[in-house]
């Protein structure tokens, strides 16, 4: 099993305890996490990425328990093995497209994928030297996907990656995520409430507020 999560519970201060369904994925498999807004979808994603620590339960990637990694180890493991696509692109405005991707290599301490080729596959070859401020929303989201893929991670997490995109770009982005995940042999988890995504990925779990 490439990725596994069991009996995860988390409690935001002053709120009800959240109990999440178990997830297990093999390489190349994809999964949707569905749920109403406020049900804790994003919290689950943060837990799976090791950005938050669960109160109980365990999350295993490549046989390693995230909870057993501390501080810098966890940061580095995340940089190497987990690629995260956020709801908004959140590119570093001071850098150009290519440099944004280089940062992933630098902090992940990993050569990963060739940036030029990657940008080419995502249809961004001509934008390598452009300032990220000149990109359209769709382009920016694709750059943020490229950044998540740059280190050839084993787990790709996407948080509502299509919420601000039109139908055409949504299809592009989902196909990109699927084909890239299959190509590098990664498990793909997409958190969404977007109906358009369901058509592409049949496999899903639902998060419900208890």
């Amino acid at each position, binding site marked *: 099993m490439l990725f596994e999560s069991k009996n995860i519970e988390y409690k935001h201060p002053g709120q009800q305890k959240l109990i999440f369904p178990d997830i297990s994925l093999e390489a190349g498999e994809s999964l949707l996490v569905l749920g109403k807004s406020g049900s804790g979808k*994003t*919290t689950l994603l*943060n837990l799976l*990425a090791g*950005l*938050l620590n669960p109160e109980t339960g365990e999350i295993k990637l490549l046989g390693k328990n995230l909870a057993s990694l501390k*501080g*810098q180890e966890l*940061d*580095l493991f*995340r*940089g*190497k093995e987990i690629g*995260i696509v*956020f*709801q*908004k692109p*959140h590119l*570093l*405005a*001071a*850098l150009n497209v290519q*440099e944004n991707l*280089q*940062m*992933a*290599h*630098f*902090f*992940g*301490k990993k050569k990963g994928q060739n940036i030029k080729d990657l940008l080419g596959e995502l249809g961004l070859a001509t934008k390598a030297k452009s300032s990220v401020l000149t990109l359209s929303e769709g382009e920016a989201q694709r750059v943020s996907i490229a*950044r998540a893929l740059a*280190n050839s991670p084993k787990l790709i997490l996407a948080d509502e990656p299509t919420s601000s995109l039109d139908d055409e770009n949504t299809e592009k982005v989902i196909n990109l995520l699927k084909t890239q995940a299959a190509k590098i042999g990664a498990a793909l988890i997409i958190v969404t409430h977007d109906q358009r995504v369901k058509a592409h990925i049949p496999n899903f779990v639902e998060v419900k507020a208890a």
Partner: protein
Amino acid sequence: MNLFKLSWKYLTFRPLSTGLNVFLLALGLAIITVLLLIQDQFEKKMNQDAAGIDLVVGAKGSPLQLILAGVYHIDFPTGNIPMEEAQKLSRNRLVKNIIPMALGDNYLGFRIVGTNHDYPALYEAQLHSGVLWAKPFEVVLGAEVAEKAGYSVGDEFVGSHGISVGSHEHDANKFKVVGVLNRKGNVLDRLILTSVESIWYTHDEGSEVDVEDSTANHQEHQQMSLSDSVAVKGFPKTSESRDLTTLLIQYRNPMAAIQLPRLINSGTSMQAASPSFEMSRLFELLGVGITLLQGLAVVIIGISGLGIFIALFNSLKERKYDLAILRAIGASRAQLLLLIFLEGIMLTFMGAILGILLGHSFLSVIISQNEQGVVASLQPWVFLKQELWIVVYALVVGVLASVIPAFAAYQTSIAKQLTKA
């Protein structure tokens, strides 16, 4: 890509804010640089020019003025002293060497000093070309005088009365350049040296021409004096009663330092002043001004430190997302801490370099504005070891200004930042 490059990208992403902070810091550091340079070179110069001179004797008046006029040639002389009294002093057993000086004329604002060969010897001056003076109206130019006036050996010029530019000219006698001194960066560079006799005759001729108005007589007199040779050691020989302006004295033994000044000040119509004592008094007076300027510089540096702090802190607010993203792609807390520190340090390092260059440029502007004063002989592009301390101070400011922002970056919770959206 590395942390250095990332910090640099962030700095150049906000050129206005970065530029302003660098400039403000540079301004404060420039003041400190100028003060350092002036203080260091002034003291060195003052000590160098006064080296070997234990006591200056001249007419009664302000002792500081006597030193400034007699040793540094920047103030007006206090007046004249009779030569007999000076000669009496030279026979004192406490006096090792005594150099007579007659002042009172200038050429283009450079002072003409009547003295003997002991004076250039005191500074171990070497001739660049020609020889030292041997006859009346023969002069030796300091390096800077020769350069500014464009004269070399064989040229002739007319001196003017008084020690500043614009007085009437002694057109009756022409000074003849027989030698030019090597540049040594001391007071001699700005002086025109000649014999005491030349100074006397210049003023004799002036009055005689005025009174007698006889060309023939005047010619005769001049030719007569020109054929004489002048005293190259000790006092000039003369049958008339003549005046001198100042005497530079070297002590024979330490006892002289106690006895001689008292002897001269109470026993004669002259006064004695010690260069080292008067200069330390002067520096004490100037010290207040220097302290004030230093205080101002420290305040400016403090303000710029605060400016850097505010700039980093504000940019941090906008950048919390960026920092969270960096953590999400594998950066550790320590790397973010370093990133912010690097920004502060790079900012202040640039400020330090700019400040030092600015300080040196300020000084060279000041020097180019003052062609003749003591300031003119300062070197604007000499770099001191203390300037490295300026860089260190600046970096300390940078580190202090980044402590709070860096700590805030260290504590940023990624999940909270990213889900705020």
